[in-house]
Protein backbone atom coordinates (compact mmCIF):
# COMPACT_ATOMS: atom_id res chain seq x y z
CA UNK A 1 0.00 0.00 0.00
CA UNK A 2 1.16 3.53 -0.73
CA UNK A 3 -0.34 6.57 1.02
CA UNK A 4 0.10 10.15 -0.10
CA UNK A 5 -1.44 13.12 1.66
CA UNK A 6 -1.96 16.64 0.37
CA UNK A 7 -2.99 19.58 2.54
CA UNK A 8 -5.60 21.61 0.64
CA UNK A 9 -6.17 24.02 3.51
CA UNK A 10 -5.73 24.11 7.28
CA UNK A 11 -8.77 21.90 7.72
CA UNK A 12 -8.92 19.93 4.48
CA UNK A 13 -6.70 17.04 3.49
CA UNK A 14 -6.72 14.86 0.41
CA UNK A 15 -5.38 11.36 0.88
CA UNK A 16 -4.54 9.04 -1.99
CA UNK A 17 -4.12 5.31 -1.43
CA UNK A 18 -2.90 2.68 -3.88
CA UNK A 19 -2.61 -1.09 -3.53
CA UNK A 20 -4.26 -3.29 -0.91
CA UNK A 21 -6.11 -1.84 2.06
CA UNK A 22 -6.36 -4.86 4.33
CA UNK A 23 -5.75 -5.94 7.92
CA UNK A 24 -2.01 -5.85 7.35
CA UNK A 25 -1.98 -2.27 6.04
CA UNK A 26 -4.89 -0.71 7.95
CA UNK A 27 -2.85 0.22 11.08
CA UNK A 28 -0.53 2.36 8.94
CA UNK A 29 -3.44 4.17 7.31
CA UNK A 30 -5.05 4.70 10.69
CA UNK A 31 -1.81 6.24 12.00
CA UNK A 32 -1.62 8.65 9.05
CA UNK A 33 -5.29 9.67 9.35
CA UNK A 34 -5.07 10.12 13.13
CA UNK A 35 -2.01 12.34 12.57
CA UNK A 36 -3.95 14.53 10.14
CA UNK A 37 -6.87 14.80 12.57
CA UNK A 38 -4.59 15.78 15.42
CA UNK A 39 -2.98 18.41 13.17
CA UNK A 40 -6.38 20.02 12.64
CA UNK A 41 -7.74 18.40 9.48
CA UNK A 42 -11.51 17.95 9.58
CA UNK A 43 -12.53 17.48 5.92
CA UNK A 44 -11.04 14.55 4.09
CA UNK A 45 -11.24 13.34 0.52
CA UNK A 46 -9.74 9.85 0.44
CA UNK A 47 -9.01 8.67 -3.08
CA UNK A 48 -9.38 4.90 -3.45
CA UNK A 49 -9.30 4.95 -7.28
CA UNK A 50 -6.26 2.69 -7.46
CA UNK A 51 -7.00 0.45 -4.49
CA UNK A 52 -7.51 -3.14 -5.63
CA UNK A 53 -8.60 -4.89 -2.41
CA UNK A 54 -10.38 -3.66 0.73
CA UNK A 55 -11.28 -5.84 3.71
CA UNK A 56 -13.26 -5.05 6.86
CA UNK A 57 -10.13 -3.89 8.71
CA UNK A 58 -9.34 -1.42 5.92
CA UNK A 59 -12.94 -0.28 5.99
CA UNK A 60 -12.66 0.15 9.78
CA UNK A 61 -9.77 2.61 9.38
CA UNK A 62 -11.96 4.73 7.10
CA UNK A 63 -15.05 4.45 9.33
CA UNK A 64 -13.08 5.43 12.45
CA UNK A 65 -11.81 8.55 10.68
CA UNK A 66 -15.32 9.39 9.46
CA UNK A 67 -16.72 9.08 13.00
CA UNK A 68 -13.89 11.14 14.50
CA UNK A 69 -14.15 13.82 11.79
CA UNK A 70 -17.95 14.04 12.12
CA UNK A 71 -17.68 14.38 15.90
CA UNK A 72 -15.46 17.42 15.27
CA UNK A 73 -17.77 18.95 12.68
CA UNK A 74 -16.01 17.53 9.62
CA UNK A 75 -16.53 14.58 7.30
CA UNK A 76 -14.89 12.06 5.01
CA UNK A 77 -15.71 11.59 1.32
CA UNK A 78 -14.32 8.66 -0.65
CA UNK A 79 -13.41 8.47 -4.32
CA UNK A 80 -14.70 5.07 -5.44
CA UNK A 81 -12.20 2.39 -6.37
CA UNK A 82 -12.20 1.51 -10.06
CA UNK A 83 -11.79 -2.17 -9.20
CA UNK A 84 -15.19 -3.72 -8.44
CA UNK A 85 -13.49 -6.18 -6.11
CA UNK A 86 -12.35 -3.27 -3.92
CA UNK A 87 -15.84 -1.73 -4.00
CA UNK A 88 -17.47 -4.97 -2.81
CA UNK A 89 -16.85 -4.54 0.92
CA UNK A 90 -18.57 -1.12 0.92
CA UNK A 91 -21.64 -2.57 -0.78
CA UNK A 92 -21.86 -5.66 1.45
CA UNK A 93 -21.69 -3.56 4.63
CA UNK A 94 -23.81 -0.76 3.10
CA UNK A 95 -21.13 1.80 3.89
CA UNK A 96 -21.49 2.93 0.27
CA UNK A 97 -24.65 4.63 1.62
CA UNK A 98 -22.96 6.04 4.72
CA UNK A 99 -19.92 7.65 3.09
CA UNK A 100 -20.22 10.26 0.40
CA UNK A 101 -18.91 8.25 -2.55
CA UNK A 102 -17.43 10.26 -5.41
CA UNK A 103 -16.90 8.82 -8.87
CA UNK A 104 -13.32 8.33 -9.94
CA UNK A 105 -12.33 10.75 -12.66
CA UNK A 106 -8.90 9.88 -13.99
CA UNK A 107 -8.95 12.76 -16.49
CA UNK A 108 -9.61 15.36 -13.80
CA UNK A 109 -6.49 17.44 -13.11
CA UNK A 110 -5.25 16.87 -9.60
CA UNK A 111 -4.77 19.93 -7.47
CA UNK A 112 -1.73 19.16 -5.45
CA UNK A 113 -0.39 21.75 -3.06
CA UNK A 114 2.45 20.05 -1.30
CA UNK A 115 2.96 16.42 -0.44
CA UNK A 116 3.23 16.09 3.33
CA UNK A 117 3.73 12.39 3.72
CA UNK A 118 4.99 9.78 1.30
CA UNK A 119 4.72 6.33 2.69
CA UNK A 120 5.65 2.95 1.16
Amino acid at each position, binding site marked *: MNIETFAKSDQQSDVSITGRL*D*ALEAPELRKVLEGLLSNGSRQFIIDLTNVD*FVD*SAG*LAALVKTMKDARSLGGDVALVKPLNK*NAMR*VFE*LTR*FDKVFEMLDANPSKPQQIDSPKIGNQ
Partner: protein
Amino acid sequence: MTDSALKHSQLVMPADLSETRQLGPWLAQLLPNNNDLQEKLELALHELCVNVIEHAIKGPGSIQINATVDNQTVVIETFDSGDPVDLDNIKEPNPDEPQVRGYGLMIIKQLVDSFTYQRLEGTNKWAMSASIRPTNSINSH
Protein backbone atom coordinates in the same frame (compact mmCIF):
# COMPACT_ATOMS: atom_id res chain seq x y z
CA MET B 1 -19.67 -37.05 -11.55
CA THR B 2 -16.40 -38.88 -12.10
CA ASP B 3 -13.57 -38.75 -9.63
CA SER B 4 -11.42 -36.99 -12.23
CA ALA B 5 -13.83 -34.03 -12.08
CA LEU B 6 -12.88 -33.49 -8.45
CA LYS B 7 -10.03 -31.24 -7.54
CA HIS B 8 -8.51 -31.08 -4.06
CA SER B 9 -6.05 -28.58 -2.69
CA GLN B 10 -4.63 -27.86 0.73
CA LEU B 11 -2.87 -24.80 2.13
CA VAL B 12 -1.31 -24.71 5.58
CA MET B 13 -0.87 -21.07 6.50
CA PRO B 14 1.05 -19.70 9.49
CA ALA B 15 -1.21 -17.58 11.71
CA ASP B 16 0.26 -14.28 10.60
CA LEU B 17 -1.63 -11.50 8.81
CA SER B 18 1.07 -11.22 6.15
CA GLU B 19 0.38 -14.83 5.17
CA THR B 20 -3.15 -13.95 4.07
CA ARG B 21 -1.53 -12.66 0.86
CA GLN B 22 -1.20 -16.31 -0.16
CA LEU B 23 -4.97 -16.75 -0.38
CA GLY B 24 -5.57 -14.91 -3.67
CA PRO B 25 -2.89 -16.78 -5.68
CA TRP B 26 -3.98 -20.11 -4.14
CA LEU B 27 -7.60 -19.52 -5.14
CA ALA B 28 -6.52 -18.36 -8.60
CA GLN B 29 -4.88 -21.76 -9.13
CA LEU B 30 -7.96 -23.52 -7.80
CA LEU B 31 -10.50 -21.59 -9.92
CA PRO B 32 -8.55 -20.40 -12.95
CA ASN B 33 -11.61 -19.77 -15.12
CA ASN B 34 -13.89 -18.00 -12.68
CA ASN B 35 -12.47 -14.64 -11.73
CA ASP B 36 -15.64 -13.35 -10.10
CA LEU B 37 -16.02 -16.34 -7.77
CA GLN B 38 -12.30 -16.35 -7.11
CA GLU B 39 -12.45 -12.71 -5.92
CA LYS B 40 -15.51 -13.31 -3.75
CA LEU B 41 -13.93 -16.36 -2.13
CA GLU B 42 -10.68 -14.48 -1.58
CA LEU B 43 -12.54 -11.81 0.40
CA ALA B 44 -14.58 -14.42 2.32
CA LEU B 45 -11.58 -16.60 3.15
CA HIS B 46 -9.43 -13.57 3.95
CA GLU B 47 -12.04 -12.27 6.42
CA LEU B 48 -12.29 -15.72 8.02
CA CYS B 49 -8.53 -16.16 8.36
CA VAL B 50 -8.07 -12.64 9.81
CA ASN B 51 -10.79 -13.43 12.39
CA VAL B 52 -9.14 -16.76 13.25
CA ILE B 53 -5.70 -15.13 13.60
CA GLU B 54 -6.90 -12.16 15.67
CA HIS B 55 -9.66 -13.71 17.79
CA ALA B 56 -9.01 -17.47 18.03
CA ILE B 57 -5.30 -18.26 17.66
CA LYS B 58 -3.99 -14.90 19.02
CA GLY B 59 -0.34 -15.95 18.73
CA PRO B 60 1.80 -18.59 17.02
CA GLY B 61 -0.09 -21.31 15.22
CA SER B 62 -1.40 -22.23 11.81
CA ILE B 63 -4.57 -22.60 9.80
CA GLN B 64 -5.13 -25.66 7.62
CA ILE B 65 -7.30 -24.88 4.61
CA ASN B 66 -8.80 -27.65 2.47
CA ALA B 67 -10.63 -27.01 -0.78
CA THR B 68 -12.65 -29.38 -2.93
CA VAL B 69 -13.93 -28.33 -6.32
CA ASP B 70 -16.25 -30.25 -8.59
CA ASN B 71 -18.16 -29.13 -11.64
CA GLN B 72 -20.77 -27.31 -9.62
CA THR B 73 -19.47 -26.39 -6.19
CA VAL B 74 -16.41 -25.29 -4.32
CA VAL B 75 -16.17 -26.25 -0.64
CA ILE B 76 -13.52 -24.68 1.58
CA GLU B 77 -12.87 -25.86 5.14
CA THR B 78 -10.50 -24.34 7.64
CA PHE B 79 -9.15 -25.96 10.80
CA ASP B 80 -7.38 -24.22 13.67
CA SER B 81 -6.63 -25.04 17.28
CA GLY B 82 -7.42 -21.59 18.64
CA ASP B 83 -9.99 -20.60 21.24
CA PRO B 84 -13.56 -21.82 20.64
CA VAL B 85 -15.95 -19.34 19.10
CA ASP B 86 -19.27 -18.50 20.76
CA LEU B 87 -21.40 -17.44 17.82
CA ASP B 88 -24.30 -16.55 20.15
CA ASN B 89 -22.18 -13.74 21.59
CA ILE B 90 -21.37 -12.21 18.20
CA LYS B 91 -23.92 -9.55 17.38
CA GLU B 92 -24.71 -8.87 13.74
CA PRO B 93 -24.08 -5.19 12.94
CA ASN B 94 -27.13 -2.99 12.54
CA PRO B 95 -26.97 -1.19 9.17
CA ASP B 96 -28.65 1.84 10.73
CA GLU B 97 -25.94 2.18 13.35
CA PRO B 98 -22.57 2.18 11.59
CA GLN B 99 -19.83 0.68 13.75
CA VAL B 100 -16.09 0.47 13.27
CA ARG B 101 -15.53 -3.32 13.53
CA GLY B 102 -17.56 -6.52 13.57
CA TYR B 103 -18.43 -6.88 9.86
CA GLY B 104 -16.30 -9.94 9.03
CA LEU B 105 -18.88 -12.69 9.47
CA MET B 106 -21.63 -10.55 7.91
CA ILE B 107 -19.45 -10.11 4.81
CA ILE B 108 -18.66 -13.82 4.54
CA LYS B 109 -22.32 -14.87 4.82
CA GLN B 110 -23.22 -12.69 1.86
CA LEU B 111 -20.42 -14.00 -0.33
CA VAL B 112 -21.07 -17.75 -0.09
CA ASP B 113 -24.07 -20.07 -0.26
CA SER B 114 -23.42 -21.73 3.09
CA PHE B 115 -21.16 -20.95 6.03
CA THR B 116 -20.94 -23.13 9.14
CA TYR B 117 -18.90 -23.51 12.32
CA GLN B 118 -18.18 -26.56 14.46
CA ARG B 119 -15.97 -27.14 17.48
CA LEU B 120 -14.43 -30.61 17.14
CA GLU B 121 -12.21 -31.95 19.95
CA GLY B 122 -10.17 -28.79 20.47
CA THR B 123 -10.31 -27.72 16.85
CA ASN B 124 -12.36 -24.99 15.19
CA LYS B 125 -13.78 -26.06 11.85
CA TRP B 126 -15.30 -23.47 9.51
CA ALA B 127 -16.81 -24.51 6.20
CA MET B 128 -18.06 -22.43 3.31
CA SER B 129 -19.44 -23.50 -0.03
CA ALA B 130 -20.32 -21.65 -3.19
CA SER B 131 -21.86 -22.56 -6.50
CA ILE B 132 -19.61 -22.45 -9.55
CA ARG B 133 -22.49 -21.56 -11.88
CA PRO B 134 -21.65 -18.41 -13.83
CA THR B 135 -24.88 -16.89 -12.55
CA ASN B 136 -23.73 -17.30 -8.94
CA SER B 137 -25.04 -14.29 -7.09
CA ILE B 138 -24.52 -12.76 -3.67
CA ASN B 139 -26.94 -14.30 -1.19
CA SER B 140 -28.00 -12.98 2.15
CA HIS B 141 -28.64 -15.49 4.92
